[in-house]
Every structure is written in C-alpha cells, then in structure tokens.
C-alpha cells in the first residue's frame, strides 16, 4: 500500500486557499499570583464564570484553567495540567468555551484522567464528539419515573434495597467495609446484559484514591471481563485539587453521551456511574475554595458544598420515552468516620439521594459479607422496578429479618424461649446466612428469587445453619438440571403465582437428596 502524497498535498493546498485570514480578537489578562493549583489573573474584564482560560507560558506550552472567582480587578482560576510552567506576568486568554471532555464508544475499556486523556498507556483517544462537563440536569418534562431494575446481583440489595435505572443510591460506611466491592459487584453483574438492548455502560470515577487501589480495581474489572463496557476516570490523590473536583462531573458527562444516544435509537442507552468517593471530592473542593479565599462554613467547607453534590446527582435521570428512555444511575460512595452519619457531607448526600446502602464494620468483622445493614438501608424508588417474583418473596424476608433482630438480643441473655420465638430465631439465622455472598459472585435475579423463596417458605428451617450456603448452591444447581422445567416457567412468568406448589415440591425433592 502506498500513500498518495500529491493528493494529500492538493487537499492541504485547497484548505490553505480557503483559509480566511482573520484577526483574532480576545480578552486577555496577566497572572498576578500562582500556586497550589490556583492562579489570580489581573484583567480579563469580560470573562464569564466557568469559562476556560488559556495560560500562555514562556515554554510555549499552553495550560488550561477554569474561571472560578470573578472579583473587582482580578479573576481566580483553577488550573489543570502543568501548573509549574506558569510564571507571574504570563498572558492569559479567555477562550469563550467551557470545559468539555471527549465522549463516545472509543472511551470504553479505557482508563482516563478527568480531561479524557489516556492513563492506561494505550493509544491516544480520538473521539468524534465532546460533551460539556458541567451542565444543568434535564428538567421534569424530559424525565419519567424510574421503572426498570438495575440488578446488583447481590441478594441483600436486589431483594430489600432494590435500585432502579436512573436512581441515585448512596453507598455509605466506614473505611474497609466493602463499599467499593459492592459497587464493583454491580458493575460485574452488568456483563450479562452487554450486547442486549438492556446493556449498561459502567463508569467508575475514582477521586483522591491511591493509584495502586485504582490499578487493583481495573485489574479486577479486566479479570471479570467487565472492562469492555466500563470507563475508569481517575483523579488520584496526587493529582491537583481542581482535577479531583471535576472528575465526577466529567465521568457523568461521559455517561450522558450514552444516555442521550437512546434518543437516536442507538444502544447502549443505560449508564451506571460509581463516584468513589464524594467525601474526597468535597475535601478537594474545600481546598480549592479556601485557596480562592471563599468564606469557610461548617467543617470549613464552603457554603455551596451542598450544591456541589446536588447538581451532580441531579444529573442521574430516567429519560422519557420521547427522549429515548435512556437512564443514568448514580452510585455515590461516602466514607464515614467511626460510623458518624450525622457529619456534614454524609447528611447532605443522604438527603440528596433516593436511599442508601449502609455498610457496617461490626457486620463485616462478624463475617456477614456484604456487610449491609438491611435494617437501616433503604431505597425510596426502586421498589417500583422490582420484578413481580422478587416482590412476592422479599416482603416476608424483610419481616423475618426484623423479627430476628428483635429476638436476637433476648436470645443472647440465655433466656428460655417459647417455641414460636425459637422458630423465628432459627428462620432469621438462616436468612442472615442466606444473604451472605462471596465477592464478585453475582446471582441472576431468578436464582435470587428461588433461594429466598426456599428460605421464606420455611423449607430451609431444618437445614443446619452451617450448611445453608451449600444447600443453596446445590439447590440452584438442581434447578439447572432436574428442576429446569419449573425454573423456566418462572423465567417466563416472572411471578410465583400458580407455581408455588411446584416449587415447594421441587425443593422438597432436592432436600431429600441433600446431605
């Protein structure tokens, strides 16, 4: 194959001929002060808040900045990129644009920084489209209520804290309680939908984390075949505060591209964005605000730290059918200190989101993993999105567990219990055992329904607690083999109505063979 140079030359010639020589008129200013990822610029009289600035450095390399503060004579700007190059007196140009990131299918499987530059050592990413990073969320008319489930593949979540597509569900807990693991499980569980109209693109935004941790996450995703439909946006703990501040917004913008492409009839149109974690983003924003001399408020956070998170999470949407019906589900993560959910940032985000998954260190160390406290975890909208079969079995599960928790305290006192209470305790212990689940082992929703059905109908009451997980494993295998016909009916009808007797019989038949 030979390159036709003369043709390329002719095209370039044509382009040059058509190139209109115009004067470039721009607003300019000068750097007065620079440091800590912040610059103060004198001049730039007509610059707008949020406008991108171009710092022309003496080395010839341009550095971009974002207008944050408009003061009487000066402008405060957050800097992205090589801030060491900027010197006092350098010329700053207003660009008339606002911050944008590259978006498109080319981003899938890549690890990028919040500006969309590749961090994975792969080829430079060239996309045909870009999207604005900080936009106003779609309004009421553009949306519809959440109605489709987003399956986590985790029994405790899908049964009792169901999350719908387009919902905002907070994952909250102390350090080392498995917050990231729950979200990664959810990402891995989306593998089964990839390639179907229900496909979900996942975006994992890491803010202020160790690069080694993020590398571990990327490796986990790759090993489980989940990286093909995932974008990882990383603003590590060593990156400047401005980058950590915009990372969630740029991750969201990358997701919105897929959500809106549903309007053109394209798939995938469903997106899941994990913000890991927003407490660190708030800290980065606090740093930025204090350096910009904005007045500090509670816990030294600036007054608009609520707006920082509300405008981000408001962008989680289930679009109306006229808009293609795409969705963007947000899973923000918040790290608490010693279980204190009444700190400033946790209360803010709890009030913004549509429910929370609460992870407890006590449960984690007691071996209940995922360490979800189902008593205080809630989902405010996802119930509408559950399949019928799950709704039928989950109600009694919640009640059984509540009764169990109440009686558990008594049982520890060693008091004699009546037969009914003892039965409830036994049932509860088996339920808790059933909800334990290994990491990166997502269950399909039908399998979840079958195991919860077995337990809530009392069919596991005579299985020793230690054998519950083995029983469950065997049971699910049985329904892939001899019991497949019954299972297929459930897959088709998505409800236990009329199938209860058949299921009970099948489970009993399996139990007879189980040792």
């Amino acid at each position: 194959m030979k390159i036709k140079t003369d043709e390329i030359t002719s095209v370039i010639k044509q382009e040059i001929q058509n190139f209109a020589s115009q004067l470039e008129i721009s607003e300019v200013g000068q750097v007065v002060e620079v440091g800590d990822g912040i610059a103060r610029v004198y001049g730039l009289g007509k610059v707008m808040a949020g406008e991108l600035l171009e710092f022309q450095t003496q080395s010839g390399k341009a550095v971009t900045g974002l207008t944050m503060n408009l003061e009487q004579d000066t402008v405060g700007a957050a800097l992205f990129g090589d801030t060491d190059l900027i010197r006092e007196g350098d010329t700053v140009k207003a660009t008339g644009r606002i911050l944008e990131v590259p978006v498109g299918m080319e981003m899938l499987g890549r690890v990028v920084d919040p500006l969309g530059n590749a961090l994975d050592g792969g080829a430079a990413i060239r996309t045909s489209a870009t999207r604005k990073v900080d936009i106003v969320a779609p309004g009421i008319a553009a949306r519809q209520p959440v109605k489709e489930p987003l399956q986590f593949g985790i029994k405790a979540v899908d049964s009792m804290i169901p999350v719908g597509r387009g919902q905002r569900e907070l994952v909250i807990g102390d350090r080392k309680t498995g917050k990231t693991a729950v979200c990664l499980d959810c990402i891995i569980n989306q593998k089964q939908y990839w390639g179907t109209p229900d496909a979900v693109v996942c975006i994992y935004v890491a803010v202020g984390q160790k690069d080694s941790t993020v590398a571990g996450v990327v490796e986990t995703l790759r090993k489980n075949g989940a990286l093909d439909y995932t974008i990882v946006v990383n603003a590590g703990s060593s990156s400047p505060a401005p980058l950590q501040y915009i990372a969630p917004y740029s991750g969201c913008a990358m997701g919105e591209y897929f959500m809106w492409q549903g309007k053109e009839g394209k798939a995938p149109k469903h997106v899941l964005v994990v913000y890991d974690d927003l407490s660190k983003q708030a800290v980065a924003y606090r740093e930025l605000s204090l350096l910009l001399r904005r007045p500090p408020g509670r816990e030294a956070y600036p007054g608009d730290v609520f707006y920082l998170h509300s405008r981000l999470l408001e962008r989680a949407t289930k679009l109306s059918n006229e808009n293609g019906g795409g969705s963007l589900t947000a899973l923000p993560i918040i790290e608490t200190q010693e279980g204190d959910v009444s700190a400033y940032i946790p209360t803010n985000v709890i009030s913004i989101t549509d429910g929370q998954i609460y992870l407890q260190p006590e449960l984690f160390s007691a071996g209940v993993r995922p360490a979800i406290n189902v008593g205080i975890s809630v989902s405010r909208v996802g119930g509408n999105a559950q399949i019928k079969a799950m709704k039928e079995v989950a109600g009694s599960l919640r009640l059984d567990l509540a009764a169990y928790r109440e009686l558990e305290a008594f049982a520890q006192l060693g008091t004699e219990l009546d037969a009914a209470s003892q039965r409830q305790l036994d049932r509860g212990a088996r339920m808790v055992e059933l909800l334990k689940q290994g990491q990166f082992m997502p269950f399909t929703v039908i399998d979840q329904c079958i195991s919860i059905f077995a337990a809530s109908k009392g069919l596991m009451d005579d299985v020793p607690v230690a054998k519950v997980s083995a029983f469950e494993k065997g049971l699910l295998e049985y329904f892939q083999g001899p019991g497949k016909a019954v299972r297929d009916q459930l897959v088709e009808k998505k409800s236990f109505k009329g199938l209860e007797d058949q299921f009970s019989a099948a489970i009993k038949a399996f139990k007879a063979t189980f040792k």
Partner: protein
Amino acid sequence: MPTQIDQVASVYARSLFELARELGGDAGVASMGAELREVCGIVRADGRALELFRSPIVDPGQRAASLKRTFGGRVTDTLLNFMLVLNRKGRLAELLSIEDAYEALEQQAFGRIEVDVFTAGGTVDEATKATLAADLKKSLGKEPVLHFYTDPAMIGGLKLRIGDQLIDGSVAAQLRRMRSALLDRGLGGRDAGTFLS
C-alpha cells in the same frame, strides 16, 4: 502594558488629580502629572531613594525633614505637601503605584487610550506609526497613546493590546489557527482510503 492598580493607590491618586484640576484645570493636571513622573523617575533610578521611602526603620519625622530638604522649592508645594501627607500616613512606598493610577486618570480625562503595539522585530517607521494612530483614533474614538514592543515569536504581522483586549494579526496566530482548522476538518470529508493506492 496595563498593570494592576491597588485600591489605596487609586484613592490617593484621585485626590491628587482632583486637587490639581481645582487649582489649575486641565493644564494643572498635565503639569502635576509631569512633575509626579519626574519625581518617580528619580526614585526609580536611585535604589537608595526607594529604600528611604519604603523602609519602616526610618523615623517619619526624619523622613519628612529629608523630603523637605530634597524637594522643597524644586517641586510645587502641592506635590510636596502630598508627599508629606503620604509620609505621615505611612504610604510613601505606594508612590509608584499612585503614579500609575494618576496616569490612568489623566488618560481617561483627556480621552486618551493606551495601546501596546507588538511587532516581530525591527523599527516601525514614522509613516506607519502615523497611519496606525489615525486608524486607531477612528475606530476607538479616543486619542491612542502608542507603546511599541517587539516579540520575535510572532514571526510577522501586528498585535495590538488595548486594555484587556488583544487583537492578534500575527503570522504565528494565523499559523496556529490554520493548524487547528486542518486538524479539525481532517481530510476534508474524504475517506482515508482515497489517499492510498
């Protein structure tokens, strides 16, 4: 080049400016400006003078006496008194910023505007300067005060800086725009395959 003027300097400059206008009208403003520039020229040229003005170690009384000795009879009483007031308020170090602020007020009052002209190199001949001044006066509606600078990185052409506005007609800027236009439009809508055989 426009420089940042701090609030304190602009307040003092305005007082001096208004006083000069009350005492001598436009001519008074101009002569006061010239005098101020001269004093600042001396201060700027002599590092020791600047040190005397700035140093907090020097006793204000002694400094006042030295100011009277140095400038008494050589500058107008108004300017000397002004400097003595600055000395008493501990603001003498601001004198150079006050000069900038005064100049800005002067330009504004006389309907003049500062224009920085950048060229790639060499000297600009008088005819070009005159044409430039005339054209700028027509488009800006104000008398331009031209300052010339050279910037070899421009390659050629002309660059004007009027306040916060930059009008870039340099060859370097055009090349930059051409580069981004070529990159943006890519192959002019053609498929890459057409360039291969």
